[in-house]
């Protein structure tokens, strides 16, 4: 079995060094879909978290509980739900989204939105409410106060982004069901791995896994550096 690990390591290196275009294509597609999903989830999740942290209404705890549970949402459920929605027989079928990279992004957005929202909510709640009130008394508008709160919570928000990216890039259910694993079009790193496993090409599957890890590592390293620099200037 150890020879399999060595084989995979060598194969992963070969893949990257030889730079075969289809391997890079798979890597870029995965990155593109997940990054877009992260951006979309942040655009919706951060304002949602800010509103939830300030608003006091009946059923607020209920909303939080539901969002918390949705963090455990299985990818297959998201896939199935959206499949029914965007499939040709579904209400949004005429858009022709199923089996496109956009469908993968859409699915991953739904998948990571609860995670982003809850992590942001936790980040904002940890802050002293004085920040908000200070900003408001200094004459900030509601939106300016929100921006001030977000700026204070930026490190935690960055961590939330990393976690969301991790969940998105590592998931296979949504990509398989909504993307359809079409070679050269919607084949992502995880669906490629699942396929090579199904074919019994373990070395190739594991090699792709190593490439995935390496990609995540590099991306996290960049974010980490960014965070360090912000800390220094803060």
């Amino acid at each position: 079995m150890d020879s399999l690990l060595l084989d995979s390591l060598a194969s992963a290196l070969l893949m990257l060094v030889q730079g075969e275009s289809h391997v890079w294509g798979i890597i870029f597609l995965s990155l593109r879909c997940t990054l877009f999903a992260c951006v979309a989830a942040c655009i919706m999740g951060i304002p949602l978290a800010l509103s939830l942290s300030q608003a006091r209404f009946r059923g607020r705890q209920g909303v939080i509980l539901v969002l918390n549970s949705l963090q455990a949402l299985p990818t297959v459920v998201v896939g199935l739900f959206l499949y029914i929605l965007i499939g040709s027989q579904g209400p949004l079928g005429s858009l022709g989204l199923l089996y496109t990279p956009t469908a993968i992004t859409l699915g991953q957005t739904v998948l990571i939105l609860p995670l982003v929202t809850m992590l942001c909510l936790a980040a904002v709640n940890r802050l002293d409410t004085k920040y908000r009130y200070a900003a408001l008394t200094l004459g900030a508008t509601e939106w300016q106060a929100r921006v001030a709160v977000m700026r204070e919570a930026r490190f935690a928000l960055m961590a939330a982004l990393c976690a969301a990216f991790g969940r998105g890039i590592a998931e296979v259910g949504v990509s398989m069901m909504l993307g359809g694993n079409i070679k050269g079009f919607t084949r992502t790193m995880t669906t490629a791995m699942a396929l090579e496993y199904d074919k019994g090409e373990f070395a190739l599957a594991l090699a792709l896994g190593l490439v995935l890890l390496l990609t995540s590592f590099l991306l996290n390293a960049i974010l980490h550096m960014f965070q360090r620099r912000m800390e220094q200037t803060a």
Partner: protein
Amino acid sequence: MMKHILSVFSLCCLALGCAAATPAIAGETIKMSTTTSTQDSGLLDYLLPKFTADTGITVQVIAKGTGAALRDGMDGNVDVVFVHDTAREVKFVEEGYGTKRYAVMHNDFVLVGPASDPAGVKNLKKIDDALKAIASKKAPFISRGDDSGTHAKELALWKEAGVPLEKTTQNIMKGGKPAQVIFEAPKGEWYMSIGQGMGKTLMMAEEKKAYTLADRGTFVQQRFGKNPPTTLEILAENDGPLLNPYGVIPVNPKKFPHVQFNAAEKFAQWLVSEAGQEHIAAYTLQGKQLFFPDAMPKK
């Protein structure tokens, strides 16, 4: 405090529930890797209880593509394989992974596509001509692309039809030596290789209004056993090259001493016995016979 006690209590309940859910199996048990077609068509659900009643041996089924099923055998993870790619099965036995290939039965493949039939293959009769028409009109075609028996058959059919295939090679290391994983496919955007099982492939073909090659069992299941039924239609069938033979091979105990060879051999023998063969012939799905015995003893 009460909250903590409650959550610990519910976690314990969960853990206990999981432990209790592990099933206990009595008697001899063998593991079999097989293709999704034998599982999805319902044949195994019909045959295996009869085999267990006859012999007391339980068969645990792992359904995959033929490539992965054979790989399970080559790794000694299962006791017997039941697949449909004669060339690779023969190689499996020649390389010493299996003891003997028993020809069990065959079913056949059908070319299916949208009723609108954009490439006009319906009246061509011959599968070669049908595939040529699809390739020349660049009509969408969905391929399993998963190294399964159906995928292997599809590639062989493209070759026979004289449609040029493009080779993609991936260099990897195997056993410390450079090796290549070769992938062949007709060139063009009309040809979509999706690397998924038969059921999914049919669903996607319907969605994309594309042609695909399917085993008859899975297609009949989607056409007559599903609600709503698939709108795909059979556009070419009953041509010699579309036959699909299945073989069963016990894994070689000389290579893997831990395999349950005796029980696996009993299973293979039972499949090709008169009783097994009659059961296979008697199995129907939605009133249609799907598998035709190949080892019926001559009377």
